[in-house]
């Protein structure tokens, strides 16, 4: 079912992933993305087996430094690290000295001094992860910085699309919702455009980033038009508490124009795939009958692919320090 790896084959004599960190999709070559997706494939079967252990990263320490609250992503990274045999520790901002006014770089120096082998970071400020990556001795994996990037989400979405549709190149993907504030949208736009998909973004004009078309996508404000012929419909979470009255008049009005309903989905291709990074606002951006229909919804599969993709990223980023042949 998965596409021929040759489509994004690593060119002769080129290292498949020469990066120390994974801070974003920006700057990645198509074959580097393809390589991570190929690497993730092997972990899907393991994750479905009863005994889910592969201890190739045994002895390494993974710190999940979450300066912003998260449940699902933190859990996904914790499981990914543990299945590869790592000692995984979590740092929540709520428990940390960040609350006592310590600067981000002082906190970073403290984490670094404990000699982790990989740090997974979420932070509410765009660029915070890059700032940290420049100051630590180990690989850094961005799991969301402000509205900038969330690369593993884009990778798991791509893996899901590749497995369900068979290709990414040429696929028509419609991303709908709060694109302006969404790191998920940014990473997805970059990744899908890099791999040759036709990417459409649709939102109320107040929730489209300025000059968004410069990122290789087509912008719409009419959801019906944006859905015409779409093979993948990716819905974004509307942050209700921030949006209502400021960027859109009300949740009710938003749902009327930008909510994905069964009827509206009829404009997309017959077997279009519906995706959502979660957590969903049922009845706002998506209705339950669409979200819960296993024939169209890939939402739980996205979560499953998330663990596999994160295992692949943790494995690849730590290869150099583990002295894996060809990586040291």
């Amino acid at each position, binding site marked *: 079912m998965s596409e021929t790896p040759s489509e994004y084959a690593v060119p002769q004599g080129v290292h498949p992933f020469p990066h120390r960190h994974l801070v974003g999709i920006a700057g990645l070559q198509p074959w580097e993305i393809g390589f991570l997706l190929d690497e993730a494939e092997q972990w899907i079967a393991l994750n479905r087996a009863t005994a889910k252990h592969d201890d190739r990263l045994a002895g390494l320490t993974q710190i999940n430094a979450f300066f912003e609250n998260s449940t699902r992503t933190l859990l996904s990274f914790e499981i990914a690290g543990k299945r590869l045999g790592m000692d995984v520790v979590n740092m929540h901002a709520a428990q940390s000295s960040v609350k006592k006014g310590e600067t981000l770089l002082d906190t970073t120096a403290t984490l670094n001094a404990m000699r982790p082998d990989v740090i997974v970071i979420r932070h509410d400020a765009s660029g915070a992860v890059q700032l940290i990556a420049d100051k630590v001795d180990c690989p850094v994996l961005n799991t969301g910085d402000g509205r900038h990037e969330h690369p593993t989400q884009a990778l798991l979405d791509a893996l899901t699309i590749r497995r369900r549709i068979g290709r990414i190149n040429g696929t028509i993907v419609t991303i709908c919702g709060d694109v302006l504030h969404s790191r998920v949208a940014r990473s997805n736009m970059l990744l899908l455009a890099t791999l040759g998909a036709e990417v459409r973004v649709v939102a109320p004009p107040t929730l489209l980033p300025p*000059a968004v078309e410069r990122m290789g996508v087509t912008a719409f404000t009419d959801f019906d038009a944006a859905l015409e012929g779409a093979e993948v419909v990716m819905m974004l979470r509307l942050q209700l508490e921030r949006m209502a009255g400021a960027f859109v008049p009300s949740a009710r009005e938003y749902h009327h124009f930008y909510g994905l309903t069964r009827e509206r989905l009829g404009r997309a291709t017959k077997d279009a795939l519906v995706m959502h990074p979660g957590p969903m606002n049922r009845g706002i951006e998506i209705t339950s009958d669409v979200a819960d229909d296993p024939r169209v919804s890939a939402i739980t599969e996205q979560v499953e692919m998330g663990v596999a993709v994160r295992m692949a990223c943790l494995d690849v980023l730590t290869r150099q320090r583990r002295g894996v042949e060809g990586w040291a």
Partner: protein
Amino acid sequence: MSGIGTLAIRNGRIVDPVAGTVTEGGVLIRDGLIEAIGDIEHGLFRKSDVVADARGALIAPGLVDVGVFAIDPLAASAGGITTSLLMPDQAPPLDAPALIRQAASFPAQAMTVVPFAAATVALAGKEMAEIGLMKRAGAVAVSTGRGWIADSGLMHRLMTYASAFDLIVVTHAEDGSLTQGAVATDGEMPSRLGLPSAPAVAEAMAVARDLMLAEETGARLHFRQLTTARAFDLVRAAKRRGVRVTCGVSPAHLLLSDSAIGPFKTFARLSPPLRGEDDRKATIEAVRDGTVDLLCSGHDPRGPEAKRLPYVSAEPGMAGAETLLTLALTLVKDEVIGLPRLFALLATAPAQLFGIAAGRIAVGAPADIILVDDGKPWKIAAEALAGQAGNTPFDGLPVQGRVLKTIKAGQPLD
């Protein structure tokens, strides 16, 4: 070279912004004043005079830098600045006569510091500060500081009141309700980086309002830094109508567009922020056609505690004093303006505007003079800057032209 001395500088090229000329020759300085100008080979100086050979360097008036945020004498003298006009954004804000007096009392042998008075108490934009008393204490203008006064009624009263004292109102031109929370200008780079941004028109909106109020009240208005085509269009038209308006620009906005902020370079976070390429080019055109009245550094030295932060949390501002002249010289190299005009924008015009005895090479004028090798190549290095901090977005840039010596009131500074 200590004490009251005489100093003869010969073999230079004298830049006279008033006459618009560059002529070979020298100057004779006695008791802190310029005593003679011209060909001093012919017996102008006495045997007791200290004679310095400029070796073909430019002899130009010391720069008058309008709207700095810190008193930073080392950065100033390294950059050829002999007079700094200080913004009221200090701790505490310069909103009372005693604070103005204190700021103005900075020892003048190193650099003249001329303070701007805070237009409102604590710069909060709510109540008018004692601007008449602050003028008597030494303030040469009133300033809204880093911020914009949102209350149009207050701004109207402020301009009306200030015009009675013939005080220039120096404003920051950004509509604060549009720029609230924004750290960049709407465009591709901030969108890619996921940084909150505001439309560039926020500047023109503020300019339009303040121009209307200046026209209505007859007040003198100065925009500290303008950066957009639409704002320059408004100022250009207002000047034609006879509105008493002037504006400044900084080299950063002449040389950098907002692509310089990527990836998350906090040293390029400025206020007003860097703009798109079209606005950058419009800024150069506004210098060329005379819409711009002066060039200023916006000097705002910031340490790591203000800059080594995520972009949205970092403070705006750049250390600009030391590189002001060097960067501005690109306008001459690119044939936008000539050397005399450049020094008019950097010294003569700002001095004249704010009524300061500086900015001229003339007999009897204070000997605030700089020697400049306008062809000397060097590379800007943030770590090597002489001032309080090295937060320059130009780190690593190869440039041409450097201040060789800064002479304040006849005394060469180290």
